[in-house]
């Protein structure tokens, strides 16, 4: 009996299972593998054909990044077994990361990105403004 009165003292053996359960688990893993492979093949095909099909860059961005996030979800959820963890484990791992990344993307695009586009003098777009601006004494 552990001193913590814990019903599951050996977390390491919690995930162990028998042959019958293993068969189901393996089937699920191979399914995810085929899904990832098909998504990658579609991505490569679209990447090669994009100039000929005349797809816009904005569409490609959403298409590729969307599929990338789908792939990332399946890798984390199934291959890394995050789906089998406790609810709070999932939150502790996903929430802080997502928060930081959303903040980073926000600052990159709205904050610094806008600044670089409209204000920075080394941007070719803004060279006209620089020439017409009064010189500092």
């Amino acid at each position, binding site marked *: 009996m552990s001193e*913590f*009165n*814990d*019903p*599951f003292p*050996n*977390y*390491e*053996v*919690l*995930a*162990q*299972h*028998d*042959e019958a359960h*293993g068969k189901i*688990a*393996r089937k699920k*893993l*191979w399914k995810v*593998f085929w899904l990832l*492979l098909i998504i*990658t*093949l579609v*991505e*490569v095909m679209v*990447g*090669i054909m994009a*100039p000929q099909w005349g797809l816009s860059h904005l569409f*490609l*961005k959403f298409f*590729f*990044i969307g*599929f*990338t996030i789908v*792939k*990332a979800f399946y*890798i*984390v959820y*199934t*291959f*890394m*077994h995050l789906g089998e*963890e*406790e609810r*709070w*484990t999932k939150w*502790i*791992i996903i929430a802080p*990361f997502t928060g*930081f*990344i959303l903040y*980073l*993307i926000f600052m*990159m695009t709205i904050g*610094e*990105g806008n600044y*670089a586009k409209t204000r920075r003098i080394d*941007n*070719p777009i803004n060279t006209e403004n620089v020439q017409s601006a009064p010189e500092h004494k």
Partner: protein
Amino acid sequence: MSGAASVDVKQAGWDGAKSPLRASHGKLFMWFFLISDALTFSGFLSAYGFFRHRYAGEWPIPSTVFHHFPFLEGHHLPLLYVGLMTFILIMSSVTMVLAVEAGHRKNKRQVLVWMFATIIGGLMFVGSQAWEWSNFIKGSDQGAILYQNQMYLYKINHETHKPELNVLIYKGQEVSAAKTAIVKRDGQEFHGANLQHNEYGHTGFADFFFFITGFHGFHVFSGVCINITIFIMVLNGVMEKRGHYEMVEKVGLYWHFVDLVWVFVFTFFYLL
């Protein structure tokens, strides 16, 4: 455990009586390490995205840079080799997760077989990346012209994928005929890419490529080393003595993370 005891546990709540996450220290801290590592890579890739938009005019198109395939020299085959690399890494991720699954059944022989396959896949990936790097460093046949420390590129015909040797491009703009003559007379030929110059376009592309794929490649390399260590430990029966194969699961987490990062690198470097 009797029913009465579990009622006690529930009432006890957070006095150190009940584990809220029901996971071992080792696994949780591997996750926390991976989150911090993921933030590092996110920073790199965001910086890449920022530069890519900032210098959109002179940023190289990946399909004009990476179009080689082993034993098929001279053909224009964009994305195929890196697609193969992605396949190798996803495949090794599957063999890793199968090793973890075999560990859950305490099947030592299968753990060894799948881990061996994973190590082979990892080595193949590192080798492919070395080949990709050497192609990028070596550069194309025509190269570009370095004149007064500025890079003048040959215009690439998008139908034939061949360079037009009489048209030069500087910072995304076509150069006038008079300037072209001067640059061709006084400039020197430059092939490939390094941290100062890049024959395909903006130097930032080469810098980010070497830095991010190098950092990822180092992760793969260290993952292979850790995999070999765990492989030897399993071989010596260390996990059998412990009664569980959680070390395989932990190194598996790291390996899947490496695969996860490559999925993003593949998208941002090669597809977009």
